[in-house]
């Protein structure tokens, strides 16, 4: 990116650009930087490949060590235990060349923070060697106020050469609610105070006034100070090590290595986009839980438009911001980066800048996903939904590609986030405040050729562990009654999503303790299945003020299952967004999000279903109801009964479904050998048709959904793990499946209002590549013998 340096011209423009603090900062083509600040941009183009690999690996290791320094010294539970942070190394103008293996959405706004700082701090108070800045302004660029960035320029020969950046979830930065996540905030003024970039360290000297400003608003200012110091430790470590590398190899060589990393990564992403058909890929979905008393669903829209090797991202169609679950443009950008990493940038060593070079953002302001100041944005739950949406749309986008489909897996746990923060007096008589992270438990979404990874945690980053039960009990006045895998919860599909985790906690040794329940309403689940798989449950948390657990204990028993808990705590109700007392005997059950499946469950190999049964993942009723598999007394599936049962289920779903809106006639026999637009929709003989049976669905530039039969069902009738809408006044949400009129296989699914028209999810605008590519779907991932297709139902 070039840099404008005419000071006179820049001053007026800089003032204009301050409006970005209202709408959210997205940098223009040229940065306005004070001419007094120089940039070190010379590079040695003759970098040999061996030296490049040596430097690339050194910078990667340096960044890992940076992250580990922060993680090990942080006083923040979410950082140390759940990896809710990231660290990065960026070029002189903020492009990230390496991020750490932690949460990936941070990569989508680290560059915004650095660039805003260049534009608005180079003039006053100035940017100099050994300065360190701190910021948590969501309109500059962060997920929510808790995520605070500490970052520093690295100078070389008197000019800005690079930036070291980290951003961590700080535990409490004030506001009206302990933990700083206010589920019912009406505006940002009910949330933690935020600051745009402040100079925390000036020429190497920590400014105690700024540190006090930062920490005094926290309920735990001493912990907050420790968090800031851990971030400083990371920045100082990384800067020193970086300078050693520059000193050893020379600035021009290192600069070339950083630029080449960006170029290689963006070229890789661009080539992958080029191999996909030009077109627009859309995802529209509903999220609910704007505030405690508002169960209405609101629409969240995202589209990816591929043109050649570039991707244009838009939020057009999203509902206006409402309640407390909104997020800013920077966070939206972060969520898109997080969602695209898996499908397009899984091997570029987390070079966020390289991925971003191929993406253009087209953002309508004032929406849930582009909130303007002073909308409430502190909860983060909307951004997590956006990550899930970006991820599952990317999975659909690559699902027809022979070489990329396996990178586009279904949504993992933490797609419809709920959380509970506990605080009060602990078992030692001290004040405490901590989040119960069990809602982050669970596993991975299914792949095109195998089941999801059990208990992997979410796909928001490399690893998002949950604390050990004993760790939780040591830090909070709680006793864990059980923590187990929830039967039948894994998102049903030809390949199954990983099950949810269910855990229950009883208050123990404190009568002065409270619980703040937060999160989205689970009837609008974001666990959208890929390729016709059913939606996965969003779980749901339950709460009761009183229980008979103590009597159970005295009788030598623990209520050790969810059904036991129903007996011990008959007053259990769904947790809503509010603050409740949590004293000895109160109970809280957390049921995490289940991961979603891939493909129609009736196409699942019966052997895999029998294996699920043996492994305690699926019950006999669900084997029959969901998968059409009949299990005999010996635990094996009965082949002829299964075939008959599946035939009956297909027939009944076809008869219960509506006629296609734009019916087509005919079929193409070469569909299975034809190029695919998405997993189950092929382009054969110039017609979009069902990949399984060749049934014609639409013209090549049309919407295949209009040629499908539509099956709308109440969520609770589809699965005991799905919930019906809490919005009794509004139009109810339904599970809709788009069925091939020929074979009855579900080609796509969603949760929508019954009256919704099908939106155009795949709009091919260009030509499809060379055609005739053999599909890779099916295979032997988990012992499945044949591709996921039915014979003649």
């Amino acid at each position, binding site marked *: 990116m070039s840099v404008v340096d005419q000071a006179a011209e820049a001053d007026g423009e800089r003032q204009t650009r301050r409006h970005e603090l209202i709408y959210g900062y997205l940098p223009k083509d040229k940065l306005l930087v004070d001419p007094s600040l120089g940039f070190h941009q010379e590079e040695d183009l003759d970098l040999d*490949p061996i030296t490049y690999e040596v430097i690339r690996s050194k910078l990667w290791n340096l960044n890992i060590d940076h992250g580990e320094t922060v993680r090990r010294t942080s006083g923040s539970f979410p950082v140390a235990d759940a990896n809710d942070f990231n660290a990065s190394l960026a070029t002189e103008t903020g492009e990230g060349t390496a991020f750490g293996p932690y949460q990936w959405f941070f990569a989508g706004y680290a560059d915004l923070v650095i660039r805003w700082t260049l534009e608005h701090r180079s003039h006053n108070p100035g940017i100099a060697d050994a300065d360190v800045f701190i910021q948590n302004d969501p309109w500059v660029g962060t997920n929510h106020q808790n995520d605070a960035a500490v970052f520093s320029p690295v100078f070389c020969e008197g000019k800005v050469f690079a930036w070291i950046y980290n951003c961590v979830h700080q535990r409490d930065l004030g506001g009206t609610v302990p933990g700083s996540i206010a589920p019912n905030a009406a505006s940002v003024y009910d949330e933690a105070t935020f600051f745009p970039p402040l100079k925390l360290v000036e020429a190497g000297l920590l400014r105690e006034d700024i540190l006090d400003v930062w920490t005094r608003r926290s309920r735990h200012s001493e912990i907050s100070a*420790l968090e800031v110091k851990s971030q400083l430790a990371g920045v100082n470590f990384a800067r020193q090590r970086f300078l050693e590398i520059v000193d050893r190899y020379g600035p021009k060589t290192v600069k070339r290595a950083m630029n080449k990393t960006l170029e290689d990564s963006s070229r890789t992403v661009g080539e992958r986009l080029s191999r996909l058909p030009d077109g627009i890929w859309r995802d529209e979905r509903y999220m609910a839980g704007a505030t405690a008393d508002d169960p209405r669903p609101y629409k969240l829209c995202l589209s990816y438009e591929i043109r050649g090797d570039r991707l244009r991202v838009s939020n057009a169609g999203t509902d206006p911001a409402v309640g407390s679950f909104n997020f800013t443009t920077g966070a939206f950008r972060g969520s898109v980066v997080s969602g695209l990493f898996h499908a397009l940038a899984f091997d570029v060593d987390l070079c966020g800048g390289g991925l971003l070079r191929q993406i253009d953002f087209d953002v309508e302001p004032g929406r849930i996903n582009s909130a303007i100041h002073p909308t409430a944005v502190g909860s983060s739950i909307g951004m997590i939904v956006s990550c899930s949406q970006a991820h599952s749309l990317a999975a659909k986008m690559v699902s027809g590609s022979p070489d990329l489909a396996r990178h586009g897996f279904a949504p993992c746990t933490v797609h419809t986030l709920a959380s509970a923060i506990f605080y009060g007096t602990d078992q030692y008589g001290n004040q405490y405040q901590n989040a119960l992270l069990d809602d982050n438990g669970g596993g991975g979404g299914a792949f095109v050729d195998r089941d999801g*990874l059990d208990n*992997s945690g979410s796909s928001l980053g490399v690893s998002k562990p949950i604390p050990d039960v004993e760790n939780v*009990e040591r830090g909070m006045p709680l006793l864990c009654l*059980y923590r187990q895998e929830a039967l039948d919860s894994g998102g049903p599909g030809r390949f199954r999503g990983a099950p949810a985790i269910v855990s229950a906690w009883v208050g123990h040794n404190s009568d002065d303790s409270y619980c703040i329940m937060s999160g989205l309403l689970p009837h609008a689940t974001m666990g959208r299945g890929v390729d016709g798989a059913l939606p996965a449950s969003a779980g749901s948390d339950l709460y009761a003020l009183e229980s008979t657990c103590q009597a159970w204990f005295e009788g030598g028993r623990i209520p050790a299952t969810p059904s036991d808990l129903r007996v011990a705590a008959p007053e259990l109700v769904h947790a809503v967004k509010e603050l409740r007392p949590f004293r000895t005997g109160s109970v809280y059950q957390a049921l995490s999000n289940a991961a979603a499946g891939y493909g129609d469950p009736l196409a699942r190999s019966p052997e895999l279903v029998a294996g699920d049964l043996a492994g305690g993942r699926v019950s006999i009723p669900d084997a029959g109801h969901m998968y059409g598999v009949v299990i005999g007394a010996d635990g094996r599936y009965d082949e002829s009964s299964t075939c008959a049962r599946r035939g009956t289920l297909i027939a009944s779903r076809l008869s219960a479904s509506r006629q296609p809106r734009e019916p087509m006639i005919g079929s193409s026999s070469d569909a299975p050998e034809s190029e695919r637009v998405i997993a189950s929709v092929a382009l054969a003989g110039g017609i979009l048709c069902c990949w399984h049976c060749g049934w014609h669905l639409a013209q090549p530039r049309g919407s295949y959904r209009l040629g499908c039969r539509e099956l709308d069902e109440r969520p609770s009738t589809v699965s005991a793990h799905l919930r019906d809408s809490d919005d009794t006044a509004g139009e109810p949400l339904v599970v809709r499946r788009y069925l091939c009129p020929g074979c009855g296989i579900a080609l796509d699914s969603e949760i929508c209002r019954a009256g919704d028209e099908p939106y155009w999810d795949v709009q091919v605008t260009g030509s499809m590549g060379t055609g005739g590519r053999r599909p890779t779907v099916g295979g032997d991932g988990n012992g499945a013998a044949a591709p996921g297709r039915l014979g003649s139902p």
Partner: protein
Amino acid sequence: VTSVGSPERPYSIGVDIGGTFTDCAVLDDAGAVVTGKAPTTPSDFSVGFFDAISACAGVMDLSLPALLAHASRLAHGTTTGLNALLDGRGAKVLLVTTAGHADAIRIMNSRGRALGASMAELLDWSISSQPDPILPKEQVLEVHERVDCLGNVVVEMTESEISKVVAAVRERQVQAVAVSLLWSFANRVHEDVLRRRLVSACPDVSVSCSYEVAPRLGHYPRTVTTIMNASLTPLMSDYAERITARARQLGFASEVLFVQNDGGLLPSGEAARFPVSTLRSGPVAGVVGTALVGSLQGEADIVTADMGGTTFDVSVIHGGHPGRSNETVIRRQMLHLRSVDVESIGAGGGSIAWVDERTGLLRVGPHSAGAVPGPICYGRGGTAVTVTDADLALGVLNPDRPFAGGSRLNREAAVEALGRLGQRLGLDPISCAAGIVEIVDSLMEDLVRRVTVQRGYDPRDFSLWIYGGAAGAHAGLFSRQLHVRRIVLPLGDTASVWSALGATLLQRRREFQKSVYMPPPWNLRQIGSELQQLETDAESYAAGWSFDTTGVQVRRSADMKYGLQVHEVEAPLPSGPVDDGWAKELTADFESAYERRFGAGTGFSGAGVTLTALRVVVESAAGARSVPAVVPERPVDEWRPAEMRRVFWRELDDWADTPILHGQSLRVDESIDGPAIVEYAHTTVVARPEQRLRMERFGNLILELARRSL
């Protein structure tokens, strides 16, 4: 100088069983070292064990019984347990755990995908996997009982629950039981009851209790550690008995000792009960041996670097003490194992060089060709270019010397494969080989830097001790920019049996620890009484030691952290009575340890200091020993190169005729200017251009770097 043993029994024998070879080292009371090797015998490891000792006896012109009869100690590092785990040969185990928590070993705290995975697997979910649960559901039994974090019994375990466990053990015909209940390390009462009842009702079944095997916070890792221990107990008991009986039969008059993960020695009876404590004993013996040899030679601050076939292992010894950690990952499971801290990366002689299709760049590791098929030049069917192939192509390794296994190295095949690889990169075979070495050495350098600088140690205060089969060839490259005080290649050819030599020197040692949670203000009376109990336990344990009791040292330490931090820093505890002055001293010690590790100004006393573990270590005092030495201090003829060989040096960007020397011909104080290569039977040591090798007393080679190296 007191001797290792008595005049009648002057020998100390160390044995290390590796994947391919079983190594043996014999140290006599004058410090002379004899080494020997024999093939490892997986069907019965004890055969290779005694074969290796025989090999040494042969060198010494002694019979095996004569050597054993004159040995005061026989210490043993073994991968028996680890191999059994890796091969799935452990016993069938039933896990008994608290009701509601059977799934802890399936859920793995949501870490299954990440534990033990490579970075490529972490980033690319399409190649990612998860470990199978360590036990199937039908081998887990829940019991109704409960203890809380303060150690209070919340739910009593009833008689019917106990009977249920006994009945299940009988019915399911398991060989071993792992009992791992929540908070058992805070109150062992229910685990103890179950053990007593099971031992009396099912005497043939071995019982492992988590409060003994891994008494630390963390139900999942404690449970996995206990399961692995239970699974290995029958096998290890049998193995230890066989070794002990045979040694006794051959005339060995003392206890056979086993190296444990924390670097101390355990008698065979304890090793049989706690086999999990020997899982990592191989590399650990090398590190602790280095600490002991180093201290005998006057070096207290050492970084060890061990380059073998598949990994490069680095460890820090500070003030004579190796660092220790509390957790380790084995078979993609998290274990609570107190171990000498060894950091590893996949960079060894067998590391595979490959071209990244995406960027067209050359990469090295982390995958290894292993021993089989091994590098291309071994001619055992390997097809991937390895670091060893590159070393051979560059002339660093001698193609005419037989490698382990007896054959000649095939340089032509290595060069041909390098040519194919180089073609994809636009490099000739030799530039490609030089590039591979450059990359792998950079990775190794970064790891050494990580374990020093990132932990707050200044490399300039340390000497770097380099050993392992492949290390001598690479030391001159990867140490160039580390700015360490001294680079030591210890004791000549013993580098290839370094773990066995380490085992001859190790001490009896055991740690007694109590997992606690003590936020400020501390209850000093409670701390005092906990420490007193630990010290009493430690002293009465040491009273039973039957050898080397020249003195016993007892030291205290604690794990501590600020406020609600998750990660702890271990700090030594002051001796003396636990009073206000003690507490003040401790806080100051912790803060300085913290700031040394994480940088000045990072500590924050306002956040308060919390104690999470108290620990008392008892070990036999090192005492004065003879320094192991491999070079007899006698004059030899002036050296001459055994031969000259063409070697490619990247510094010169050219080939140079390079003198090759036999290690045995070097004498003390002799210096060799690079480029030159010193060859031993099992090791090759390289002095690069402008570097110099100097033979020290005892047989160490010191590598001196030039002012200006590439």
